[in-house]
């Protein structure tokens, strides 16, 4: 079954979407969309370093993404610049350095477009194993630290006061994100990874009554987007990575059109009440 390149793409893509679902929910809840983008952009620096030092690509990307997130934590603590300014600097600086480094390495042939936008139709059997192996690891870790993750997302001080360690939870979450980015790079590409995290989660919000339901729904919606996007790209001969994102967007728009459980106005009014 996995002999067919399209089948391999489907299996890998669905595996990634299932992993990205719960992780993406936390990205949305913690308002870390831009943070995820920054980590993803830094992946290109990881690619360049891996080529330069002849080192395993996945590990290299993971290390760079994790380092960037730690660097951000450090800079945030110094508190001189706002977080989004810091993210803007790190995000594009790492992307640019990666591009510059790659251009210097004339001795390697590198499919830059493949890294930026993904090349899911080229995934090998080993890639499929990697996606599922890594994915199971990530999902297992998230389930294992689910309660502290949710609690520290709601309020880190409350979590700490009641015996949890929100700093460690946050660190672990960032490492998981770095891992998912390293895995996802080949499938949807550096520039589109965050969309696979955020769009299914945002789509799931409307139909969810608990964080747990939202996480599962986000996985399923993501998987649906992968399947839809891949068949779409086959039919219309479009690039596969962007097609998946377009399919996810289509589902999101569809969710907006369907009858919402509660109106948006009610939401914002109630939110103010909650903050009072």
């Amino acid at each position, binding site marked *: 079954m996995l002999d067919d390149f399209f089948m391999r793409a489907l299996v890998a893509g669905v595996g990634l979407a299932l992993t990205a679902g719960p992780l993406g929910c936390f990205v949305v809840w913690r308002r870390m969309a831009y943070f995820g983008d920054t980590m993803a952009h830094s992946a290109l620096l990881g690619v360049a370093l891996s080529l330069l030092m002849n080192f395993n690509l996945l590990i290299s990307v993971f290390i760079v993404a994790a380092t960037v997130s730690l660097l951000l934590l450090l800079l945030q603590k110094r508190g001189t610049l706002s977080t989004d300014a810091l993210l803007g600097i790190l995000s594009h600086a790492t992307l640019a350095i990666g591009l510059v480094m790659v251009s210097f390495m004339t001795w390697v042939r590198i499919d830059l477009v493949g890294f930026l936008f993904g090349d899911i139709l080229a995934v090998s059997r080993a890639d499929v194993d990697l996606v599922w192996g890594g994915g199971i690891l990530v999902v297992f870790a998230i389930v294992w630290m689910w309660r502290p993750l949710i609690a520290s997302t709601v*309020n880190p001080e*409350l979590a700490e006061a009641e015996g949890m360690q929100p700093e460690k939870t946050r660190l672990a979450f960032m490492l998981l994100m770095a891992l998912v980015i390293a895995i996802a790079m080949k499938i949807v590409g550096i520039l589109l990874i965050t969309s696979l995290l955020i769009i299914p989660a945002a789509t799931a919000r409307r139909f969810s009554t608990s964080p747990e339901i939202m996480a599962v729904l986000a996985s399923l919606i993501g998987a649906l987007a992968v399947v839809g996007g891949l068949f779409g790209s086959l039919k219309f001969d479009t690039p596969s990575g962007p097609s998946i994102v377009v399919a996810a967007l289509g589902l999101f728009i569809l969710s907006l059109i369907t009858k919402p459980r509660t109106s948006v106005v009610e939401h914002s009014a109630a939110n103010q009440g*909650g903050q009072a």
Partner: protein
Amino acid sequence: MLQTPTRNASPLVSLAGVGVRRQGRWLVRGVEFSIAPGEIVTLIGPNGSGKSTTAKAAIGVLKADEGRVERKAGLKVGYVPQKLSIDWTMPLTVERLMTLTSTLKGAEIDAALEATGIRHLARAEVQHLSGGEFQRALLARAIARKPDLLVLDEPVQGVDFSGEIALYDLIKTIRNTTGCGILLISHDLHVVMAETDTVICLNGHVCCRGTPEVVSQSAEYQRLFGARAGQTLAFYNHDHDHTHLPDGRVLHADGSITDDCRPNDGHHTPVVPTGRAGPMRIVHTHGPDCGCGHDHGAAPDSNGQQEKRDA
């Protein structure tokens, strides 16, 4: 019912000379107090006086930069933070909020919701609650896990007057039935819960301390608020003997100016803990523009407070 606090039991938490500094500025300094099982300690003080900081230092969310904080080993805390906003992207019902930090049985959740009077809201999303309902939900969450120490940072904010009395009644009941210690931060400078064992007034340091008990029994107070309120709320009359200047220095009543102000620096009128039977008033004089929100001596604090309340 467990009535009187077990004062002889070892304290749940005790602070000695605790100070917290951020960016070269002392948020609070020289804080001393302890909370025993069954004891209610109320922190009052103007905005920015270090109430929340002190509470966070007590439960270890903030690290004290000086002094010592000792917590009983394995202390179980229930915490209601001053500010908590839940992003509406997270679907969270009141019921789900209950098990945020610990697993609970269905009956425990029901009991906590019942006690706070929001059982009918169990399936409501927290983002749809009113301010008062949300405070009740947070309180229910904190008590449901049966803590040794309940830390409530302005638990009655956004709650109307009768709701406030009901919540204070509930806090009293919780203390009486579970025997937990309670650290309460009041949003009000002069009105505290009558059951409070110790009132501590902060203004970057401990200004004064005492019990509200006597005042709550006074005829004048009961006339103002009614007998029922008299069982629940009490005045804490106090004046300050120094002014915090805009540059951070301190002008004392004796005319001297110092860089900071700490108890026992010789500039203060001796602070007399009045004890349970003694008179309530801790008298010292006050500068004209301390900016700390206190009445400065002439008119009794209670009158201003009462007008605001009745309005």
